[in-house]
């Protein structure tokens, strides 16, 4: 399947990635090459095959809902690029 620069722009927006006008042709070309590679999947019949999401078909284990760690807010928030009074800071969202 061939992709257009507009397709790539749409996907980029979904992925929250900004692609500059100047990079768009090359990104589209290389993206198309990868899609060309994966299009090969269409040549195999898998009508009756159950999709596999875990290599051992393992099911999620459940655990009791008990507190195991301690609240380490200060330490965990130390990696935030901007914070104030224990909250993450972001640009103004509502005027």
């Amino acid at each position, binding site marked *: 399947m061939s992709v257009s620069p507009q397709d*790539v722009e749409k*996907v*980029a927006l*979904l*992925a*929250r*990635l*900004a*692609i500059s006008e100047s990079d768009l042709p090359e*990104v589209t070309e*290389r*993206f198309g*090459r*990868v*899609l*060309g*590679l*994966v*299009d*090969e*999947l*269409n040549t*195999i019949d*898998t009508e009756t*095959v*159950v*999709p*596999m*999401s*875990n*290599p*051992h078909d*393992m099911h*999620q*284990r459940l*655990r009791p809902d008990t507190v*195991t760690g301690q609240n*380490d807010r200060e*330490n*965990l928030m*130390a*990696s*935030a*690029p*901007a914070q104030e009074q224990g909250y*993450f800071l*972001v*640009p*103004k*969202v509502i005027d």
Partner: protein
Amino acid sequence: MTDNALLSGSVSSLRQQLRDRAVSSEELTRACLERIEAYNGALNAVITMCSEQALDSAREADKAIAKGDIASLTGIPLLHKDIFCTNGVRTTCGSRMLEQFVPAYDATVVTKMRGEGAVMLGKCNMDEFAMGSSNETSFFGAVRNPWDLNCVPGGSSGGSAAALAAGMAPLVTGTDTGGSIRQPASLCGVTGLKPTYGRVSRLGIIAFASSLDQAGPMARTAEDCAIALTAMSGVDAGDSTSADIPVPDFHAGLHHDVQGLRIGLPREYFNEDLDPDVRERVMAALSELELAGATLVDIELPHSHYAIATYYVIAPAEASANLARYDGVRFGYRCEEPVDLEDLYLRSRSEGFGEEVQRRILVGTYALSAGFYDAYFNKAQQVRRVITEDFTRAFESVDVIAGPSAPGVAFQFGAKQQDPVAMYMEDIYTLAVNLAGLPGLSTPAGLINGMPVGLQLIGKPFDEQTILNAAHRLQSDTDWHMARPQLETVAP
């Protein structure tokens, strides 16, 4: 004892010397740190050093040894791939996005190996978010191959493999999502093991593709990998995909006997596409095992061809979901002066991620988007089962499957950078093993024009022991794994 003898020693021999008090952990650790300082300028294999911390741990280890309080890795220096979270020590994943990230906790692998007494020297360079087969995608610059500085070390655990081959540490860790332990092990001439999916906890390993990611050791010998694997493995309440099955002592279980071992050679791996020199080296290694009593059997893995297409849907799809967490808000890189929240997301991600990572996020987002989910993601998961069933069938008649670890030896920088698909082909012999969740090991099989080649041994699920034993036997009968790059000549 000379530094060179220390720097080329295996974990098992160093362990004995530490116990015999022939060398102290502090001496050994100092020798490794000096080696890193001397050659890291040329190789760029290590991103972060922890010299003071390492010397403190080494002295602790020496005290423990003096008291007879000795665990399986007490006093042994090691380097972790910079994908393992280390409490208080910067963990970058090779990305600008995490250039300043200092985790508040340790990965389970880090905790376990420290618990066994290992001494962490620092963190190894890698392809950004483990996406690459040449280490050229690292934000911190490419790692150079100690066998030839003009060539790549492989990837994504290329820093780990290069550091090990260069004598910077006797033991390193890596992760393998599509070949990222086995291919660099092959290109750098060391032994590398990707365990069965679920064998080793993924807690604290920065996520790439969660149904494929698995951590494992790289070392100078299969015996050392057996020691390290035992230390790393086990169910973890913090990783619900870690397997709740007993972990054998792989080192105690190691033996030389390959009498009657049936080794399958997939027709699809030894077809006309295989480089004749690689074929010759791989077959020479397999002949050694045959001589030792193993039987070589032709087998078929008829859907091998689809592994690349399947992988390059599933891995990017899972990556696009995992990497959605990097939003410039909670941790990681944030752009300068965002005008609004949308601008903050867009620019933080575009400036924080490199080209290959962005490409995979795009492909993954596309494969998961409305209208394409069935055609790509669902389809790839169906083909994944077909590929896995090929292995299940093959293992009804053989104990081990063998082939090359990589299509060739290390290539020159830039050789495959322009074409993503050409780079993806580097993992043509390793990807299917991740899709099927099987254990795989790469062991040195000689040189082509002075550059290492690897033999890959693939095992049944949770049967790492059999491939370790086969590699151990091969390493007892041959000396390919002993070959070392002449770093003093290559990087004077």
